[in-house]
């Protein structure tokens, strides 16, 4: 059988193959972006499912509209209006099967072959892969501890303008809150500067915010939507990180006309998202809110972040730089240039500890000396032990290379 051109750009990732091993229970895995399962409120969910099946079964098990279950869309609009300074109504929200689907639809909606996507350097691996299916080029915008670097962004756009490439740049994809893979968060100042540049060049923004509510210190940061009167920003959200990933419920929010385009895409892609699941989440929010669950998650992850960060300080060579995430699930390490983290991973697997080599998070390659560590999914003891094991291997590699 002869497959399409786009498939040749989509190879199953070698890292995924490597990390398959890390599913074994005796391995300490900092690999996946998995939430901690123990916080899931299974008893409450059971009650809710039962009550839906008793009171409203026909609706729950029926095809409904492509846009999604209206009360849930309304509830999402209300939630994000409060937390993200938006003023959305139901029509601004489309329910998707996880925010991954929002990313994929974005590619479908905007990207023709050889169009350009701007993104942070590094950025979310599965977003890179999803966009690749539409055969784009990527331009990576440099970042630092405060987020995307506005001057660099402006320089790129100016350059593109000079070489008449601006019209090929279709969008910029960003993760301002507790970034995957770096764990960094954009400062308010950066957000404003970013929006000013984006407005100058009229560039659509895809803001992917799965982690925004998982803050450990201080308040939730405002969405880019706060500075977006012309509705250039399309925001993606999900319940995967605050409730559970297996439901596969996320949403796209933004300008109504654009949401409508996304609805058309949804219709062709899978008609609609499971109604029962949507109702279940709606009833849960309506009855319990998500605040208590989120508090639990925050407390738990914060402790784990602390243990991971202090273990790194304790065990790892100072040659290795670490980010200090103020929320989310990930921490990012930068080893000296001569370290290749894929090699490191292979040796670490022998010592029964796993992480994701950072190179994969750069759409144009390079940066093989970086590592992404997830801290949400392992208990504190194992985190410390795991960091100790990685440090053992890594420190030896450093000593060997420098002596």
């Amino acid at each position, binding site marked *: 059988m002869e497959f*399409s051109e786009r498939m040749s750009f989509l190879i199953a990732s070698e890292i995924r193959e490597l990390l398959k091993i890390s599913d074994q229970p005796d391995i300490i895995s900092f690999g996946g972006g998995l939430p901690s399962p123990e916080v899931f409120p299974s008893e409450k969910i*059971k009650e809710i499912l039962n009550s839906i099946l008793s009171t409203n079964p026909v609706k729950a*098990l029926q095809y409904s509209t492509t846009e999604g279950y209206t009360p849930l869309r309304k509830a999402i609009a209300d939630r994000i209006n409060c937390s993200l300074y938006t003023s959305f109504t139901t029509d601004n929200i489309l329910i998707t099967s996880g925010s991954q689907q929002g990313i994929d639809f974005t590619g479908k909606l905007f990207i023709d072959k050889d169009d350009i996507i701007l993104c942070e350097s590094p950025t979310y691996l599965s977003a890179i892969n999803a966009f690749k299916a539409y055969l784009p080029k990527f331009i990576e915008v440099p970042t630092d501890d405060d987020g995307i670097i506005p001057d660099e962004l402006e320089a790129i756009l100016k350059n593109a303008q000079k070489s008449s490439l601006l019209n090929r740049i279709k969008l910029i994809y960003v993760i301002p809150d507790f970034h995957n893979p770096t764990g960094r968060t954009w400062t308010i100042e950066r957000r404003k500067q970013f929006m000013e540049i984006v407005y100058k060049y009229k560039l659509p923004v895809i803001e992917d915010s799965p982690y925004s509510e998982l803050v450990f210190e201080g308040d939730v940061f405002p969405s880019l939507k706060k500075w977006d009167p*012309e*509705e*250039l920003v399309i925001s993606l959200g999900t319940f995967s990180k605050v409730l559970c990933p297996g439901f596969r419920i996320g949403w796209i929010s933004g300008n109504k006309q654009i949401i409508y385009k996304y609805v058309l895409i949804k219709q062709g892609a*899978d008609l*609609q998202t499971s109604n029962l699941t949507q109702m279940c989440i709606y009833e849960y929010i309506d009855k319990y809110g998500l605040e208590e669950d989120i508090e639990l998650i925050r407390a738990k992850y914060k402790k784990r972040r602390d243990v991971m960060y202090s273990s790194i300080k304790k065990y790892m060579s100072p040659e290795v730089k670490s980010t200090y995430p103020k929320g989310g699930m990930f921490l990012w390490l930068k080893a000296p240039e001569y370290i290749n983290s894929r090699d490191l991973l292979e040796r670490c697997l022998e010592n029964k500890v796993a992480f994701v080599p950072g190179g994969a998070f750069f759409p144009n390659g390079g940066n093989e000396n970086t590592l992404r560590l997830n801290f949400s999914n392992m208990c504190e003891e194992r985190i410390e032990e795991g960091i100790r094991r990685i440090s053992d291997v890594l420190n030896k590699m450093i000593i060997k290379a420098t002596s």
Partner: protein
Amino acid sequence: MINIDRENSTPLYMQIKTQLKDMILTGKLSPGYKLPPERKLADILNVNRSTILNAYRELKADNLAISTVGQGTIVNPALGSVANINNSNITPIQLPWKHLYSKMMSLSSDTITQDILELANRKDVISFAAGIAIPELNPLEELKKINEELISQFKHVPFQHTSTQGYYPLRDSIRNLMQKKGIIISNDEIMILSGSQQGLDFSARAFINQGDIVFTEEPSYFCARQIFEAFGANVIGIPMDDDGMSMESLSYMLSRFKPKFIYTIPNFHNPTGITMSLEKRKKLLALSYKHQTPILEDDAYGELRYEGEQIPSLKALDQNNYVVYLSTFSKVLFMGLRIGWVAAPKQVIQQFKVLKQISDVHTNSFSQWCLDRLIRENNYSNHIQTVLKENKRRRDIMLNSLNRFKPQNLEISWIIPEGGLYIWCSLPDEIDQKELMKNAEEKRIAFVPAKVFYSEDCDDNCIRLNFTFPSPNQIEKGIQLLMEAITDSYKEKQNEANSYTEIKPIV
């Protein structure tokens, strides 16, 4: 502060909204300003409260105001930033998004499915339009029991990620179901999808390059054609006989074109209800081998046979791994669960897995666990029996009603389907379908016109009638009303014809 002009043709609420909008945009009402409560403003302006409600709703729709708990409606605080960024108080200009959309997007603009589903959800309409199974027949008690047991036993586990290819036990259950139908494959050749629609999307993505050709039956399922076209396919329709796709046409077309695949719905075809005969299935496979063209077999309705002999699927007959087979639980069980599957050669599954990973990671875990339990506890075959019985009853009621209410003077005929969800009903040439839809809508009846199922202009004057979604009473009443609408449309046409005066050339 607000003037209203009752003589003006602009509705009052729009007048109020426009003036408030101006005040907001000129900064007279600042961001965060609390607008007067609806009742109060209604009293002041001496209008109905609903007028104010509408005006506020419009403001909110424009993002100029928001509702807050405790404060009522306030001017959107986020507007403060308009001034920051634009340094002006003019209404923001909309980005001309249109030129940013991909080519693919410009090819998919039809909202037909959505419109149909919306109609089905309207309480005042008898809908023969939607392809929805009998809503009341879900095995609810079983599902409740399963839900209870699963969560008590496994707690959070059914809510975590499952494998991209699908929950293994469910794949195994499906393998078992397929084996009973003569399709012998391994679990590796099965993948769970979020509805079989996703299988159509993946097939398009995995196979179609811009300009590639795809064959389908003509007519065919519109969402399939739409998604193929969205990925750049040139869809060529192969006409149908009473026993499925015309093999003469197919053979001729295969000698002229090299399609990427042949898409077919061999069982109880959507929209015609036709089933492909065994001879044709064999012929189709032979042709596909000869021309080395894979077949995409969409078996959404195969389970729903009410009479006659079961015919083996193309997948069961296929000796050479040419068939990609799609099916779904949507038409026999809970469609709200959104679970379908694909059975295909491993190399295709491999590609689909890559696509699944980037499109929605995996199908809803809990739904997969529930469904698997349901199939395993042997309730599945009992349930299917119930569904078949009731579906057949409704089909017969529709057939009887058609016979009973059909106007004697008009040539109306239909194909009696041996299964599935649809009756394809042919109308006299004189009937204009647009006209008919209007007349039917007035009587609160919905159906799907033929043109939706055709890739090009169609002169097939048929309509698709679903007999499972409406209740038996609704079927009778609805068919009666539909026939009246047809008669009305016919009469209108006659009157038009009579009043038409030919223009004679002046010589």
